[in-house]
């Protein structure tokens, strides 16, 4: 264990712990913007600067491991000024278009600017507008809103192991670009980690403000992984899918289907009632009618050809429990071992 003092509080943490984690452990909040639990510290935002007694230079808490006996100060006029100026610098490029931004209301930058009581754009710089190409049409990239915290590129590399996007250019004119276009899987990990509205999803026109939607936690139905996701509901319509960092087996990640494949739910073409074919045409029926018909047919087949004439193929869209019941049904009720699963084919 390493002992240190943060804002007068004595803390003991495991060797290798960063100052930021030690502070959080001690219940002390240090502002951050680029830091993300699931990523290696990036160190781009410089918000988490802290002072260490005896050192002339402030250190960033997110990527500095603790050492024995250090005395850390997380708040001082000097640190406050540094954080404030850094935020003001971000507003050189970042537009104050919060009213029309999808992220407005749950944007880390907005919260910090508000917290630090910054009133508007203070500094100016000449800009050179460049077209920036994102690797997938499912995501809209807003270069002006992008603060270049690099969470997106880091997540693409570290969580997904892809490295489809990265920083390009130099200085003020850097932007995020597709460096390996073909590697992009459109999974939306980048959107998920973006602290601002620089990455927004490109489906649908009207999204509803974050505080207006109802987020319903559910399990993704696309495959057996069981990823946890939140269906965003506005006026009883699904307007998006989000995740919560660290929640579920997926810890906040999804694949392209889970994140963007929600439109089928409200598809006009979707069947919502059972159909029974009569005289070559489908007719709507009640569940009782439909199930009785199926039971009757199964019984008939079993009587004339034996149980092994029936086979069941279960769906990967079902949960483990449903799949378990399916095989139980095939074995115990129908009486056959002819059971398989579409994911195996």
């Amino acid at each position, binding site marked *: 264990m390493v002992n240190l003092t943060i804002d007068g509080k004595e803390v003991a943490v495991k060797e290798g712990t960063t100052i930021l984690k030690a502070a959080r452990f001690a219940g002390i909040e240090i502002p951050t913007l680029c830091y993300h639990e699931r990523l290696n510290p990036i160190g781009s935002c410089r918000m988490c600067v802290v002072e260490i007694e005896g050192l002339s*230079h402030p250190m960033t808490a997110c990527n500095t491991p603790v*050492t024995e006996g250090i005395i850390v100060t997380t708040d001082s006029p000097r640190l406050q000024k540094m954080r404030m100026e850094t935020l003001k610098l971000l507003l050189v490029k970042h537009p104050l278009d919060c009213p029309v931004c999808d992220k407005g209301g749950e944007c880390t930058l907005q919260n910090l600017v508000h917290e630090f009581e910054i009133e508007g754009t203070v500094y100016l710089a000449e800009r050179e507008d460049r077209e920036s190409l994102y690797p997938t049409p499912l995501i809209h990239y807003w270069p002006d809103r992008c603060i270049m915290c690099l969470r997106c590129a880091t997540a693409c590399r570290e969580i997904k192991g892809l490295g489809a996007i990265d920083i390009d250019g130099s200085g003020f004119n850097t932007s995020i670009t597709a460096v390996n276009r073909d590697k992009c899987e459109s999974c939306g990990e980048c959107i998920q980690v973006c602290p601002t509205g620089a990455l927004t999803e490109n489906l649908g026109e009207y999204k509803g403000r974050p505080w207006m939607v109802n987020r319903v936690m559910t399990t993704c139905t696309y495959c057996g992984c069981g990823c946890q996701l939140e269906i965003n509901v506005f006026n009883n319509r699904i307007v998006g899918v989000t995740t919560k960092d660290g929640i579920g087996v997926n810890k906040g990640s999804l694949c392209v289907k889970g994140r963007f494949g929600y439109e089928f739910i409200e598809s006009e073409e979707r069947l919502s009632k059972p159909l029974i074919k009569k005289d070559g045409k489908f007719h709507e029926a009640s569940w009782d009618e439909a199930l009785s018909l199926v039971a009757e047919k199964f019984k008939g087949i079993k009587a004339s050809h034996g149980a092994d004439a029936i086979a069941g193929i279960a769906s990967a869209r079902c949960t483990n429990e449903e799949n378990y019941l399916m095989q139980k049904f095939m074995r115990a009720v129908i009486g056959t071992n002819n059971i398989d699963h579409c994911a195996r084919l």
Partner: protein
Amino acid sequence: MTDILFSSWGGVVVDNRGKESENYEKIEKVSLPEQFAQDENINALIGWYGFLLRVQDVNIVDMCRAYLTAIQNESCGKCFTCRIGTKVLADTLTRICRGKGQDEDLEVLSRLAEVIREGSKCNIGQSGPISLLDALKYFAKDFEKAIQDKNPIPEGNYTYKLTAPCMDACPIHLDIPGYVECIKEGKFQESLSVITNKLPLPGTLGRVCVRPCEEHCRRTILDEPISIKHLKRFVADNNLEKNKGMSFKPTPSEKTGKVAIIGAGPGGLTCAYHLALMGHEVTVYERHGEPGGMAAMGIPDYRLPRDILGFEADQVQKMGVTIRYNATVGKDVKLSDIDKESDAVFIAIGAQTNTEMGLKGEDKGYKGFIPGVQYLQEVNMGTDPYPEGKKVLVVGGGNVAIDCVRCSFRIGKDDVNLVYRRTKNEMPADHVEIRDAEEEGVKFHYLTNPTRILTKKGKVIGVECIRMELGEPDESGRRRPVPVEGSEFVIECDILVPAIGQAIDLKLLEGEEKVETTRRNTLAVNEFTMQTNNPKIFSAGDCVTGPSTLIRACAGGRKAAINIDRLINGKELKATYEDCFDKLFEKVKVFDSRENIGFLGGRKRLHLEMLPPDERKQTFDEVEKGYSQLEAMSEADRCLRCYRVGMIAV
């Protein structure tokens, strides 16, 4: 006497403005050469520790504008303060210089400069504003005047180079912060490309480089240097493991030609690599049956497995380079014939022969008397140079001597000794190697010098030695060893290996048109172009520098390639602006071990796992294991990214 008007270098302000030149106060921190290139005087320097003015007519406001613009150009964009902050600084200064400054600009400049200096992630942002802060403090009037006058300031003439302490110390100036950062971010393939941009032998150098960079690593001031060498090995091994060839991007020159290279050592291979990248047709003549020069025939396998070197040499051949093995120039082929068939010739024959100790009987061919390089060569070929001998005595204190002793265990000799005339402290060999040899059980005899070879029936039976003591320092700064009279004693041995130095075998020049050599029997070349007195013949590596290191040979090979390309394309051969900056930075030191960084230290480097001494001394298996991915990323994370910009006004 100094001719510097003002200096704030290293935080020490010397202000000679308004003084008579004979009363100028001296600048202790730095010395600024007068000339940059021929006919180009240095009027001012602005850089990572401050700025110096030599002449009055450099406009300080304009120089700050140029410098901050350069900083913004070099800003990688990976941290907020530097990416946007230096842009605001550069734009504000540009506006002032255009005569459109406003009163509040000065306050903005100093406020932001301070925040950027303290808040940026790496040394670009941390060092970039230092000079501006000094200028605002000591030249406030100039700034105020520029704002009030509202007259555009004519733009001065500046030129700059990006460097870093480690990068500057590396003879080939590898972009070390660049490749280390890629590793930190898990971009191993990109990291490898940064290295192979200059060097075709990453796995080789990643194992045996003498790493001058690490001696100049700024992290040393805090705790320990970054393991620059091991990180290089990591990316090379990672690539090899994935069984990928190396990917190269050839960029053919306008005119291409035929080039002959003599010697497939590190110097020759690097030259061939760069020439091939530029589209030239290259044939290498090599005396031995395999590539690598001393790296293959001298350096033992437990330090550098041969397949690593072999793989890297293969890559060079895959680029279209032909290597003709077992072809000794001067014997099998004549230099003049090669010369006739080629547009240029590059000589990189290394230092192949042993320096004599000056003892009687050295040339008698006694059994058991085996010069170091020859001893290692035979071991490397897989033979025991003298199976009858069991007790080995190696003379010398350099890496070759250490290789000889460590090898001896591995071919089954059990009593291994090393005599060196000074103490361990003065030994030029790598200290890590000395430690490894000690662990393996080598008996070191310091302050000892051989005086007589003892023989019986033409076989070595021992060496008479004399005790030494350290006297006054000699020209190398090391204390000169002097014999203690009457202290002679005998060490018995049946193998005597002198390894006190190598010399250059210039037989290939005999009977040829004159290629000039130096007093030290090395080839004489222009230090910038590597060209000999014969315009078509270039040379580099050990045969120019005397026995030196792999990386210097590689750096020389690269330089030669660039200049051979120029020759073929009819361009003038002269020092490039990069060469001039290298020269300048030798004076204006890029690394200052006394710098007060003010960061938190205490984060030691990750050491490599090693085979235990008793096990490793039996085999030629590689002693050091490489880093795992996570270890490499964590080690790379220690790097402070000390990029910095040096700019001069000419």
